[in-house]
């Protein structure tokens, strides 16, 4: 390195130039993603906005595009997501906590870890085939909301497990040591410290998983989701004791992406408008879920005192 100030200055100028160049390349890379999304959204809204009225949400599918709506699809999607969330979140979080806090470090754990990560990359259709054999036939759940929800739960389990573990690993070791020093048991540590502090990260994983699940078509078609269904599942709340009914779990169903695809493949142009409108609703549902996740994350983070 010379001490010549001229040379150092040149070096600095060169460094800045590279800095600026990289900033531009990075920004362009970001714009590719953002602009594509913006153009897609704008296209959807341009094509579908005219159909987005109250009727569209209240009507069942129909052979007449103007009368067709997404009621059965939106209810189907919501109920399937409910089953998915209720099963995948507790199972995934429990598995993640076990692997991080309880499991001994040996080759069995290692194999499990590698496989969990690999499972996250398995194509969704494979989960559909597994579910067709297991839930639909072996367990005889039929082609029902229950089968679909459990299938998608299996599919997003790895995502939730991995993100739970990441979130737990971010908690400083001093917290653990402090808790043990004060005589807390492992369960007390998990309940009072590990879970509360990792909730933000866990929720991120949960939402990524659920957002993937709601747009998923292949495994749902494999297990036999319908295309035309013009009635709703039985209500979960009944007038008689015990006021709760689980009959809706057995009900046939359809989901938003399937309804969309069916409309897209119709010859009549007005159905294409319906497909775009259904697309807007699906994107809005995903954004809403993301919004809730962000809100929850901020809330939980504010409670952390360290």
């Amino acid at each position, binding site marked *: 390195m010379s001490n010549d100030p001229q040379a150092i200055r040149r070096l600095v100028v060169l460094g800045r130039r590279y800095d600026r160049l990289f900033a531009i390349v990075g920004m362009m890379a970001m714009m590719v993603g953002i602009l594509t999304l913006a153009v897609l959204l704008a296209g959807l809204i341009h094509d579908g906005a005219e159909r987005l009225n109250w009727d569209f949400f209240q009507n*069942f*599918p*129909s*052979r007449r595009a103007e009368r067709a709506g997404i009621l059965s699809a939106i209810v189907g999607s919501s109920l399937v997501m409910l089953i998915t969330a*209720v*099963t995948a*979140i*507790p*199972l995934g*979080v*429990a598995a993640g906590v076990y692997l991080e806090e309880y499991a001994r470090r040996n080759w069995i754990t290692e194999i499990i870890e590698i496989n969990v990560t690999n499972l996250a990359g398995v194509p969704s259709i494979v989960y559909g085939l597994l579910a067709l054999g297991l839930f639909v036939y072996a*367990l*005889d*759940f*039929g082609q*029902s909301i*229950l089968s679909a929800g459990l299938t998608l739960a299996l599919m997003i389990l790895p995502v939730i497990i991995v993100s739970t573990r990441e979130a737990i690993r971010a908690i400083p070791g001093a917290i653990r040591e402090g808790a043990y020093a004060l005589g807390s048991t492992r369960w007390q540590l998990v*309940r009072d410290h590990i*879970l*509360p502090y990792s*909730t933000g990260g866990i929720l991120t994983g949960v939402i990524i998983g659920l957002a993937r699940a709601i747009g998923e078509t292949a495994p749902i078609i494999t297990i*036999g*989701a*319908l*295309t*035309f*269904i*013009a*009635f709703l599942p039985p209500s979960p709340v009944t007038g008689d004791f015990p006021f709760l009914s*689980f009959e809706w*779990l*057995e*009900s*046939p169903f359809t989901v938003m992406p399937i309804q969309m695809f*069916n409309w*897209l*493949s*119709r*010859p*009549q*142009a007005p159905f294409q408008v319906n497909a775009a409108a259904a697309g807007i609703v699906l994107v809005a549902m995903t954004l809403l879920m993301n919004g809730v996740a962000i809100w929850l994350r901020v809330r939980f983070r504010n409670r952390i005192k360290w």
Partner: protein
Amino acid sequence: MKFIAKAIPAGIALIGALAGGPVHAAGVIEIDGSSTVFPITEAVAEEYQAQVGGARVTVGISGTGGGFKRFCRGETDISNASRPILKEEMVLCAQAGIKYFEIPVAYDALTVIVSTANTFVDQLTIQELKTMWEPSAQAKVKSWNQIRSTFPDQPLKLAGAGADSGTFDYFTEAVVGRAKASRGDYQASEDDNVTVQFVSRDKGAIGYFGLAYYEENTDKLRAVPIVPPTGGAGVLPSVATVNDGTYQPLSRPLFIYVKEKALSRPEVREFVEFYLKEGGALASEVGYVGLPEAAYETILKNFNGGKMGTVFGGTPEIGLTIEHLLEREGKL
């Protein structure tokens, strides 16, 4: 975080509560099968549910083959089919003890289309279509003047149905002479709107699909008159030419297969009768060709008379008119 701690036992209890007992929807008429027949059955189901309060009908799209697989396993009450049941499917149904009625519900006219920019194709014979589509044409027949010497030296681009569809089966059977025998270098799509786009943009492109897709796109596409195997002038697909049997061999019957056991439920019988009464008008509304009034009456009589089985004996056939079809005896 109390929520998650509480949700774990709740989730486990829920799964436990559900694990017992078989789960199947009761009182629902379950239909699955061909995507080609889907719009007709959907329309009938919609009208039926509008007229009969509390009626519940579901329609899925598994394709004709996928539909028969489920039908012969006893999972569905009615199967939509764009081709008759095949031998191996008949065996499956027989093994499961499933008897069925084969009910023609409408005709579809496979329409050969070119772009409106294509002015040189006046009509095509089946032989010319065969020259275009047969497997040996692959990578060899690439220009229109190889089809007919008077056509210009325009690159030939082909588009058609994907290999899993009944449309593909029927077209290859009718044109090449053997089901599923087709050249592979063409734009294959399960979504006919893709074919519409492909053909409308290219002067030298040609494709085929159901009449409904042509009728919605007459501004971009032109139907090619087809010379029947018996000779004469080219015939355009239409309700009239399908019904009088002159648009041959590219008109094909569409069916529903009804499980005999399901008829013990009055709503299934009622639905089939409703289908035969209203199906013709509804089929026309969604772009297909309804059968003549008299045919529906004969079919209904056969249905109520318990005439079961298929009239094809498990081998696909082309160029059958509805009269021929109804004259035959069914076999299970």
